């Protein structure tokens, strides 16, 4: 049974106060329309310690846990689905450095990221490869370190990035096949080409790009984590990432539900508030039930992570459940708004697009079902 502590409730309150002061709906709409990252809002969030809230204080993190990060994500994304996500996503990747990095790497790279001075972009995914598969990109070792070659896709924050995190195939040791390693790459290194992938359905504030590495020089200090352990690190990254994304999805679901309720309480047709119709009540009921179930699943997953007891299955279920709830809630919110739900001005269509985009990130539903199914069924002989 999860009871939020006073400190956790304070995180929610701090997030609410921040969003109420900083999130302006019209600004959010305009920024989303043109795909402009909300730099000022993000800087203020960083100044409040919201970036890397679950990462160690020694490196400018918040020193709290994943549950606090989830509460923060949920609160911000409920108040604005696009701005909330952008603030949460902007520091994404820092957790890899915190979890896998050497002391030196953590001291060097984390404070600038968590203080909002350097942006990080995670370049793991390749089109044509499954999201947990060995990469086609290669890092060939030489006497100066490695030479990195390959192309990554769907990289958010790429245009703003000061550093990229990437995953490349490295020669296997005698006991490993398909070995890969993670690397930290300076965005201004020679041989990097960033190509905008264009307008997206959702996630336009952080955008997406194709990033090509062409004979990019990596010095030995740029190996992140253990050589050849990239895929195992990737799975650890996904575990944390999926729970965080589930927290964002929970916020989208809650925000959509709240907007739907507010609208049906005030819209009059056929001489009464449309909230009075039986079908409206049932629709809202279904959403509320889904959001409640998703919330418990996500909070449980985050708490398990903080207790060192989370696994890939828990994280995948949390994301699957929360993303579905977000899509359902935003979809119904549009419907309940009638024609107004289709207008940008009413924001609910934006929540729907953000929910859809989130559901395709770090594990589309099919990928997540593979993870959960394989885990539950177990290894077959």
């Amino acid at each position: 049974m999860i009871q939020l502590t006073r400190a956790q409730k304070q995180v929610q309150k701090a997030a609410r106060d921040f969003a109420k002061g900083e999130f302006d709906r019209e600004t959010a709409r305009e920024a989303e329309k043109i795909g402009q990252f909300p730099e000022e809002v993000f800087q203020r969030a960083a100044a409040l310690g919201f970036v890397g809230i679950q990462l160690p204080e020694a490196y400018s993190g918040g020193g709290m846990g994943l549950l606090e990060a989830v509460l923060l994500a949920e609160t911000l994304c409920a108040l604005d689905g696009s701005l909330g996500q952008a603030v949460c996503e902007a520091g994404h990747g820092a957790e890899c450095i915190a979890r896998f990095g050497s002391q030196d790497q953590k001291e060097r790279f984390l404070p600038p990221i968590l203080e909002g001075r350097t942006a990080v972009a995670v370049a793991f995914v390749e089109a044509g490869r499954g999201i947990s598969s060995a990469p086609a990109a290669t890092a060939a070792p030489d006497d100066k370190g490695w030479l990195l070659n390959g192309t990554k896709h769907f990289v958010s924050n790429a245009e703003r990035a000061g550093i990229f995190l990437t995953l490349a195939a490295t020669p296997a040791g005698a006991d490993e096949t398909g070995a890969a390693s993670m690397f930290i790459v300076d965005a201004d290194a020679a041989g990097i080409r960033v190509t905008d992938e264009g307008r997206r359905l959702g996630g336009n504030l952080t955008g997406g790009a194709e990033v090509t590495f062409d004979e990019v020089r990596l010095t030995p200090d740029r190996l992140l984590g253990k050589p050849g352990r990239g895929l195992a690190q990737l799975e650890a990254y996904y575990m944390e990432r999926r729970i965080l994304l589930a927290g964002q999805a929970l916020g989208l679901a809650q925000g959509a539900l709240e907007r739907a309720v507010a609208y049906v309480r005030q819209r009059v047709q056929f001489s009464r508030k449309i909230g009075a119709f039986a079908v409206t009540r049932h629709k809202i009921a279904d959403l509320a039930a889904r959001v409640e179930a998703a919330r418990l699943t996500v909070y449980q997953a985050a708490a398990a992570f903080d207790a060192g007891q989370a696994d890939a299955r828990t994280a995948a279920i949390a994301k699957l459940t929360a993303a579905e709830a977000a899509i359902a809630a935003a979809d119904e919110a549009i419907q309940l708004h009638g024609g107004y739900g289709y207008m940008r001005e009413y924001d609910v269509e934006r929540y729907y697009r953000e929910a859809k985009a989130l559901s395709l990130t770090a594990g589309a539903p099919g990928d997540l079902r593979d993870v959960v199914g394989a885990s539950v069924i177990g290894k077959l002989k």
Partner: protein
Amino acid sequence: MNILTYTAEHEDFRRRLHEFCAAEITPFADRWEADHAVPREAWRRMGRAGFLCPGVDPAYGGLGGDFRYALIVNEEMARTGQTGLTASLHSDVVVPYIESFGSKAQKRKYLPGCVNGDIVTAVAMTEPDAGSDLAAMTTTAVEDGDTVVINGAKTFISNGLVCDLVVLAARDPAVEDRYRAISLYLVEAGTPGFNKGQRLDKMGWHSQDTAELFFTDCRIPLANRLGERGAGFLMLMAKLQQERLTCAVGGMVAAERILQWTTEYCRRTVVDGRPLVKNQAVQFALVEMATEVKIGRTFVEKLVADHIEGGQIVVETSMAKYWTTDLANRVANRCLELMGPAGNLERAPIVRGLRDARIMAIFAGTNEIMKQIAAKFMGL
């Protein structure tokens, strides 16, 4: 045995329209979407080529064709990747009001232009406080001698900016009965007192100019009233069967097109050395969607056949409208899932398809209203 059979004339019409769309519409779809507008000239070209209002009597320049032509146009236009040139709205929803209820003089005056693309039409019923509850409209039409004075505002009007002629629903403020108060009027763009608002910014249908229309002491001749005074609501109800059927066709072809594109995508996209389509879960998803799409097509074609025979299919068209538009949305959502992160990029046509499908469950009467109507006519 096919539910619908097409004659050689139908097939020839389809072939020529297919070529027309490939040359005159599809290549411009992306630009029209980016511009949020369709050039007026595109409508004129389509009219001159004989693809607008195929149902209109040859006496006014039309083909005198049956609703199978409407189905053909809807199917071919669905392939163009744009929604701004809403030929079906003009030909199958608005112009039929003039065909059915217009006086000879009105028909002679307006129908030829509707056919040849000189006159683009819109229908204006919805208001900010009269959406599902249409009878709650407050736009007034006061008949005064041989003029009518109109005051009020309409919203969410498709073709709002491009239209030359509007079929407007307005109420007589002196009549208490909400339903008997409504009459229909033909209002020409440019009439003093009739102003078009800004283009409304929407989730999808970007090339379609949806707008507000404002009437401030707008005077039109009494000769522009369409049909009998006070018969507006009855006329709207009479025409809504075809409007709903048109929307049901639209939902069905949207679902078909999205599924077809996604199936091709899954065939050609290789992940970890294997085409997506070889994944059992992907196969089952495509089969399940194909099954529902086939069921939808069968239902809609049956209703088209019934409609051509003059059947009263209010319940069935309401069912079809809500079911196929819900299907289009379900298919769009599930297909995007199959694409993974690539499904978040606008350069994939089905992303636009998802955004465009969403409104179908709302316009022409929300799907909730469709169920309400079906309930009423089922005697529930």
